[in-house]
């Protein structure tokens, strides 16, 4: 668990981070979003003390940050940056094994851990263990970066726009892999990005920052439904907000049981998002889809009218609450 209370950072006269309060519960994925220069990276780097804050308190697992030796603290916090920061003169295996080596693990343990991580991140050992960073593609290099951050099995992972320099296809692939890793590993993640789709897709807790301040924070759904001001609204995509919200909802949460009528000839998997369902309806000129399970057996039905109606209800109930 990470807790920041009234944290500020000033560089000379400039205030980079202004009186921030933020709690990230254990095992949660927190995304800091905002335009460049809003202080999100600075906030992240205060957590592993790459930058020392000017005032306020940061508490990590119940202890004030000052209670930790900064070097030892960093060894138990994974850190991934956009430019990967891999050491160009070391092989992939050596790069990944860095923190275990700093922690003086035995050679066998390091080797085993490196192999495990390379398998976890889809880097075949024979092919990649002895390559140097300049021989890797951007996506491969960032996988190595993530593996290196995870090497000593830290509870906390700090990621500073890790996928910002990748092409869209690789980026989406790595986002999906990170999401599936997170669902298994349950790290406490603080993730900085300016890509709102990325944040909506990955985060449990979304923090929107502007000019060093937190404008709004909450679950992605809550922010989508009730953006506090025009800035948050435009960051969340303005008119596209409805679709972004639909992207966060699964088909199976909105389907109705099979009726007496024949199921539609257009089929969609129950695990797809509502956004994908809407897109299919538009493409296939239909307002009804048959929902199928992984064996392609119909298990329910999805209709446009019902989606719209439920969205209205949700909005109403949120208002009352």
């Amino acid at each position, binding site marked *: 668990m990470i807790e920041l209370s009234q944290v500020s950072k000033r560089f000379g006269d400039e205030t980079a981070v202004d009186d921030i309060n933020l709690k990230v519960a254990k095992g949660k994925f927190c995304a800091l979003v905002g335009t460049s220069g809003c202080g999100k990276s600075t906030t992240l780097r205060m957590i*592993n003390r*790459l930058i020392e804050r000017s005032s306020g308190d940061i508490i990590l697992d119940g202890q004030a940050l000052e209670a930790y030796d900064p*070097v*030892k*603290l*960093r*060894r138990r916090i994974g*850190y991934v*940056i956009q*430019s*990967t*920061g*891999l*050491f*160009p*003169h*070391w*092989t992939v295996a050596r790069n990944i094994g*860095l*923190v275990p080596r*700093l922690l003086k693990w035995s050679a066998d343990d390091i080797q085993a851990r490196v192999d495990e991580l390379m398998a976890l991140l889809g880097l075949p050992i024979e092919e990649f263990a002895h390559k*140097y*960073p*300049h*021989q890797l593609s951007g996506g491969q290099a960032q996988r190595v970066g993530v593996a*290196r951050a995870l090497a000593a099995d830290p509870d906390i992972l700090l990621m500073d726009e890790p996928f910002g320099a990748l092409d869209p296809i690789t980026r989406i692939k790595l986002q999906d892999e990170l999401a599936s890793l997170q669902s298994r590993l349950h790290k406490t993640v603080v993730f900085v990005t300016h890509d709102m789709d990325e944040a909506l897709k990955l985060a449990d807790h979304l923090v929107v920052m502007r000019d060093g301040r937190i404008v709004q924070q909450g679950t992605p759904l809550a922010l989508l439904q009730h953006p506090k001001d025009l800035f948050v609204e435009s960051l969340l995509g303005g008119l596209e907000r409805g679709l972004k919200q639909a992207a966060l909802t699964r088909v199976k949460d909105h389907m109705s049981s099979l009726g007496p009528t024949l199921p539609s000839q257009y089929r969609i998997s129950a695990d797809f998002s509502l956004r994908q369902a809407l897109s299919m309806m538009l493409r296939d000129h239909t307002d009804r889809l048959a929902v199928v399970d992984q064996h392609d057996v119909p298990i329910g039905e999805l209709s446009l009218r019902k989606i719209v109606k439920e969205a209205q209800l949700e909005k109403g109930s949120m208002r009352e609450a």
Partner: protein
Amino acid sequence: MSLLDALPTPKLRRGGCPNAVLASLSIVMLAVIWGMDAVSVAPNRIVQGTGVDVLGAIGLPGALLASLLILAIGGLASQPSRTNYAAAMGVVVLLLALMPFGLMVASHFLIDPTLPQARLGIGASYWLILFILLLCLIELRLRLALTRLWPVLILTGVGLLWWLCASLWLDDLALVQEFNARDRQFIRAVGQHIVLVGVAVGISIVLGVLLAMLMRRFRRLQKSAFAMLNFLQTIPSLALFGLLLAPLAWLAANVPVLAQLGVSGIGNTPALIALVAYSLLPIVRNTYIALEQVSPDTLEAATAMGMRRGQQFWQVRLPLALPVLLEGVRITTVQAIGLTAVAALIGAGGLGTFIFQGLGQAAMDMVLLGALPILILALLVDAALGALAEALRPGGIQ
């Protein structure tokens, strides 16, 4: 069928356009071989030799063979491919290896065995061909993408062959006669030269790296230190030796401890001081730049992973800086090898002794006896340290 299909497509030549560099080099070599004196003959050491052209030196068959081989280089270069370049490389090496045999033939034709003082001088075309062949070697190394170790190996092999020929069969060569007259002296001079350069460069590396580290720690030192080192570089070497003479002589006369250590106005001490003064700038500059150029992202990652300052320096900053740092050592060493020749003037010994003695006696071959080894030493050190720096590039990045 469209109109485009009916048009004849120009055939693309495989491997691209002819290599202009090698082609023109081979033309120049042909002109040199037929137009300039290959060797010179002199009845004794002091008399100016008379030039002999290629036909007189190695006869028509020899001249034709040489011309054919040179043409082959140009021919192979006109249709570039890996095999052709490798073949051209073979021809260049063959020519280099044949050159001493040409001298043997020439000495057989031209030197009268009844005249014990008669000697064969190496002529302008021989030197030029040697120089141009080295240029070909450099060009071919780049085309074949070989490491810098290759020319070193090839030239070492060729050099050994030449040495063998010279010591066994080339007694009439003026250079060999000069060597035979003072072989002990020569070996000692080479040793002195290498020791002087080695000690000077060694001291410069230690001082230079220390100074560069201090400059990193105390930024204000940086400007004044670089200004001082730049100023030192502008003093002519001879003047620096002269400037050191008086104060060192005074020190030796007034501080007995220093005199016992061998400090004096002439000899090794001023030579070393001057060499170190000149060597510091390239070492400090390259060390400083090398340490500063390491990417801040990499260093931040090192900090963020939990490396301590010392670990960061030894495991990340220094290894990444090493190639550029070695580049500084290379420049310094080559420069020091040349400067040490001048140090002979103040009695420091070394190969410069032969140069200045030869100049004094108007014996150009003796000058060569000093100058050639200096050239070879410089080339060897240059190539060897270059190859080392290349091998140490992180992960083989070019």
